[in-house]
């Protein structure tokens, strides 16, 4: 048996000793484990240890929360209290600021506009107010390694001078420690320097597990900016497994991630962008639409009616102005019933344009009857007097009839001699005409030629008509010759105008061969005077009858065939334009 034991000892002693050592190690594990964990935590495998412990620690924490809730509550109590107080303080400060601003801007047009914007966007009114009123700029952003105070990333506004970011980050960390130590909070306390204000400059320090984010701001930051910075810091912690190691090793992806997450301009813009919640505040849209639709229709109808009324008034006013501006009309009243009737009252000259001309062109808009109630009146407007003269004188086409402001009727152009004669007789009687100017009115060529030919014929006939006197007598009893002479002279004077000539009569007295000149000259003069007086008595104008100085006008043939103890008349024809 002893050999067996010796043999077993020879064979199995190393195994037994190893098992004893393992059992001893197992028994001493609870005592050795803390030291082993501490060594591992400080050594190169710290990260591996953290990963290995993450799951069991999380499970243990979950079990503890479920089964030993009070213990967890007691443990967290020192942390929860300050956290809640901080949250309440922040909320109260934000609420006070927002309430003050809301009160200041509620009753102004700008405030109402912002309220409308808040209603449309679904954002709180205070947020809209802050978005419009606050001006803020991020001057510097420092991502600071919490343990060392070293700068992991620094971003600054473009126009700022360069600065020693590492020194500033270090001092910030030192001052944070100093503040915490001064308040006796201790290194592991949750409290920290979260913000500081100097004039318009504001410092925010947002703490993270591995790194802190310090922001130097200018102005009054919108409330969303702090949340944006917090989210940026959280994203950096979540995306980077260990940003410190990554950056210290010069990893490009870590630097790029920092730069992307901590772009001051992007953060400012994100802070002032209206947040679009996934489900905004519910709006009673159907009800609002049901209420707004009739209101909208009423507004549209009112706008349309207003526009129609405006258009109608413009139409009535335009019609009245057209009537007033038309010569021959005197408008005294305009009455209208919108879109039904327009009544114009007043007076109208018969020679004015007919009122129906005012109906065209038809204006846009509703249909309406237009009624004219005009009393007849005699207008003295030059245009109407001219129209009246045209109607009464019926001038040929080549005659221009005009009336000026002084009511002077002008007749110009060429016309038949008969019309000219009639017009001259009637023109002065046209109502409204004060004087007549017919200087430029001429007989047409054909009429003038005929008149001149007739004058020549009459002069020939007059040359053959003589009033015979008894020897030595200065009175005659030759009524037939006198009548014939008077008739032709009257006709000749009437042809003066159509012929375009000035017609006068030259009266000649004659004597026979007996007697001397001293006796015969007075005798000839007396016989001519007798004939002139007889013609004047017959109705001929005295100014057209003049005495001839000699018998030169008496054709020799006539003198030879007719008795010379007589008196006769010849025509003197002169161009009317060549008056002396």
């Amino acid at each position: 048996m002893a050999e067996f034991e010796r043999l077993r000892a020879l064979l199995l002693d190393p195994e037994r000793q190893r098992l004893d050592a393992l059992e001893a190690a197992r028994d001493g594990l609870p005592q050795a484990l803390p030291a082993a964990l501490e060594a591992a935590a400080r050594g190169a495998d710290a990260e591996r240890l953290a990963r290995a412990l993450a799951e069991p620690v999380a499970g243990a924490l979950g079990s503890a929360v479920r089964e030993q809730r009070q213990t967890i509550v007691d443990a967290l109590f020192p942390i929860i209290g300050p956290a809640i107080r901080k949250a309440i303080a922040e909320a109260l400060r934000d609420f006070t600021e927002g309430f003050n601003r809301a009160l200041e801007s509620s009753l102004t047009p700008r405030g109402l506009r912002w309220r409308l914007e808040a209603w449309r966007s679904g954002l709180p009114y205070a947020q809209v107010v802050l978005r419009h009123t606050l001006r803020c700029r991020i001057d510097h952003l420092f991502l600071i390694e919490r343990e060392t105070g070293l700068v992991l990333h620094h971003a600054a506004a473009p126009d700022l001078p360069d600065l020693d970011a590492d020194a500033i980050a270090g001092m910030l960390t030192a001052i944070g420690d100093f503040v915490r130590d001064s308040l006796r909070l201790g290194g592991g306390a949750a409290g920290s320097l979260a913000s500081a204000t100097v004039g318009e400059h504001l410092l925010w320090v947002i703490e993270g597990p591995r790194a802190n984010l310090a922001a130097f701001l200018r102005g009054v930051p919108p409330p969303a900016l702090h949340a944006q910075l917090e989210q940026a810091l959280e994203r950096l912690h979540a995306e980077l497994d260990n940003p410190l190691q990554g950056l210290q090793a010069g990893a490009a992806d870590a630097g790029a991630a920092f730069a992307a997450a901590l772009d001051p301009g992007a953060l400012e813009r994100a802070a002032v962008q209206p947040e679009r919640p996934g489900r905004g505040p519910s709006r009673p849209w159907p009800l609002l639409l049901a209420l707004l639709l009739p209101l909208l229709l009423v507004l549209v109808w009112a706008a349309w009616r207003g526009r129609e009324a405006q258009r109608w008034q413009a139409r009535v006013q335009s019609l009245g102005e057209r009537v007033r501006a038309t010569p021959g009309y005197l408008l005294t009243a305009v009455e209208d019933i919108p879109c039904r009737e327009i009544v114009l009252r007043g007076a109208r000259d018969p020679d004015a344009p007919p009122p129906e001309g005012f109906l065209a062109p038809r204006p846009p808009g509703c249909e309406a009857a237009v009624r004219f109630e005009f009393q007849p009146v005699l207008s003295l407007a030059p245009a109407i007097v001219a129209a009246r003269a045209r109607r009464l004188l019926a001038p040929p086409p080549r005659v221009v009839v005009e009336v000026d402001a002084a009511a002077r009727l002008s007749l110009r152009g060429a016309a038949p001699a008969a019309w000219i004669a009639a017009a001259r007789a009637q023109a002065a009687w046209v109502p409204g005409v004060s004087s007549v100017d017919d200087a430029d009115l001429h007989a047409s060529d054909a009429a003038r030629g005929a008149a001149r030919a007739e004058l020549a014929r009459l002069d020939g006939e007059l040359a053959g008509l003589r009033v015979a006197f008894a020897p030595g007598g200065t009175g005659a009893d030759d009524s037939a010759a006198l009548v014939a002479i008077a008739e032709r002279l009257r006709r000749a004077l009437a042809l003066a105008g159509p012929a375009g000539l000035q017609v006068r009569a030259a009266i000649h007295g004659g004597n026979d061969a007996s007697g001397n000149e001293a006796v015969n000259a007075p005798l000839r003069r007396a016989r001519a005077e007798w004939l002139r007086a007889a013609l004047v008595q017959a109705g001929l104008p005295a100014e057209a009858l003049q005495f001839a100085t000699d018998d030169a006008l008496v054709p020799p043939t006539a003198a030879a065939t007719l008795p010379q103890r007589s008196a006769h008349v010849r025509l003197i024809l002169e161009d009317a334009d060549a008056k002396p």
Partner: protein
Amino acid sequence: MTATARKVCMLGDFGVGKSSLVARFLRNTFDEKYLTTVGVKVDSREVALDDGRSLKLVLWDIAGKNALDALNQNYLRGATGLLLVADGTREATLRTVLGLLMQARSLLPEVRAVLLLNKLDLVERWEVAPSTVAELRHALPVFETSARTGDGVEPAFAELARSLLP
């Protein structure tokens, strides 16, 4: 970030010339008053080494004290290098800084340290014996410096930077 940065704390007794060394070596971003108010002043400088590498030293100049209180211990947190400064003309400051080193090592076991024996320009009045200096060199790099003349300052910082590079 163009260069890797390391946090370095400067420790030493009162009046050993720490701030003068900082003024000689760094850009002096902040006023000296922070030393008396907050108890620390931070500056930085990028050190280029002979081998082409560079390292940015972020130097925390901690106000001179005989021992590290709680606040100063917080300031040491995360430091990877120590600049220990003693006044060669006062041997007591050497004992103080070595005490500070021991205290810091208890907090930062892996920290690298460089000792600067300052006021080399007053070497004739030095109390620290050369044998002591030689003995110290066995434990850590020792540089004799003068903040007034600048002697030994750059090599001391360069040595610390070299030791901190991976």
